[in-house]
């Protein structure tokens, strides 16, 4: 078990594979633990998949039982938390909204198909969902989608799980949602920010930091002749305006970072001031490729 978070001189080891049409990467500071860490992360992601993958008919999010598992409750709770702290800029009741614009199956299948629907449904509203312990109440007709928070929370939990069971520091990257736990490498966790449309940069973060990038350039498809993307503005039911191609945020957890980066996309022009008020290090790439940074994001080498 790793409890210390002091930097450790080490050679890291990494492994990657595909899940949810994206890449999972596990990096450990103790190379001999890579196999065990990989197994823990794989198992955890499989459990999350069964709980929260709306493209699986046997998942809890599709069945919505009255009494849900602790894991599903944790993920729904995170989604409701995200809605709560963003005043609904992120909303887990966008399931029908996403189906309406054609995101009704895994993104690889959406991209391969021809969608002809263009149904815009504003989200019914997260306050209609009631979760008390493991007891769930969802009004008829309300469909859930936890996509805005599940990857980030899964990364946090998987990293924490591996670092708590094994003598190693761990970084888990789920398609750009990065969580860290346990000891850090001697120069910190060094992360390349490779947002579309801008020159890449790299940052160094300390123990327990989460980093997330939300992008309007990924998971795009054509629906009824119109190009759309997967980040929904719950207030309108349409994809968020593409003021920003990508927003990267660092915070004390991957979940917090991802909530902020996703909400920033939805906020559009107001995002830099909103991120600044929270003191969050953030990098925003505008539609024209220009970059804005909050004051706590480091200057970039030219």
């Amino acid at each position, binding site marked *: 078990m790793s409890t210390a978070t002091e930097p450790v001189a080490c050679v890291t080891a990494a492994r990657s594979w595909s899940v949810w049409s*994206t890449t999972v990467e596990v*990096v450990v500071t103790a190379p001999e633990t890579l196999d065990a860490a990989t197994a823990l992360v794989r198992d955890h992601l499989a459990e999350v998949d069964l709980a929260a993958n709306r493209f699986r008919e046997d998942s809890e999010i599709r069945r919505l039982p009255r009494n849900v598992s*602790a894991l599903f409750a*944790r993920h729904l*709770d995170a989604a*409701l938390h995200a809605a*709560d*702290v963003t*005043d609904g800029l992120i909303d887990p009741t966008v399931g029908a909204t996403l189906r309406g614009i054609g995101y009704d199956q895994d993104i690889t299948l959406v991209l391969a198909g021809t969608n002809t629907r263009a149904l815009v449904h504003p989200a019914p509203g997260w*306050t209609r969902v*009631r979760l*008390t*312990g*493991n007891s769930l109440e969802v009004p008829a007709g309300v469909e859930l989608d936890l996509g805005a928070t599940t990857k980030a929370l899964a990364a946090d939990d998987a990293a924490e799980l591996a670092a708590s069971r094994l003598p190693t520091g761990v970084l888990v*990257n*789920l*398609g*750009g*949602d*990065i969580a860290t736990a346990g000891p850090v*490498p001697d*120069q*910190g966790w*060094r*992360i*390349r*920010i*490779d947002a579309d449309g801008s020159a890449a940069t*790299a*940052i*160094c*973060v*300390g*123990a*327990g*930091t*989460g*980093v*997330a*990038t*939300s992008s309007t*350039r*990924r*998971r795009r498809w054509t629906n009824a002749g119109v190009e759309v993307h997967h980040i929904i503005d719950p207030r309108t039911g349409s994809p968020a305006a593409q003021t920003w191609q*990508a927003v990267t945020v*660092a*915070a*004390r957890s991957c979940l*917090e*970072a991802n*909530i*902020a980066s996703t909400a920033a996309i939805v906020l559009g022009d107001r995002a830099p001031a909103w991120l600044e008020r*929270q*003191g*969050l*290090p953030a990098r925003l790439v505008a539609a024209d490729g220009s970059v804005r940074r909050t004051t*706590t*994001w*480091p200057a970039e*080498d030219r």
Partner: protein
Amino acid sequence: MTHNDDLSRRNGRIQRLRAIRRGVLGTAVASSLGIATLLLTGTAHATSTPASAGAHHDVTGTTTTRATGRTTGHHTTGHRTARHHKAHRVAKAQAPSTPVQSTSTATHSSSSGS
């Protein structure tokens, strides 16, 4: 304690915190004093009360409650007051405990968006 036990324990704590934020617990207290009506429906609307209006975050993200005994006059139907909204903006996320720095050496991973 198993991983799932730990998740359950954390779920309970988080849900209690959100309940306080929503004013549900504060509303229940106020109701027992006969000064407000508790209305818990599927849309989560409860009559605003002095106690619920006193639920807030401090700048560290800790949730606390205050029973001020005062009416706020913000509204009478939604489950959060305008004051709640302002307070929530303070507690959205916390910056990393150590500063983010730039680096030019080899990286461990990359964040390219999703």
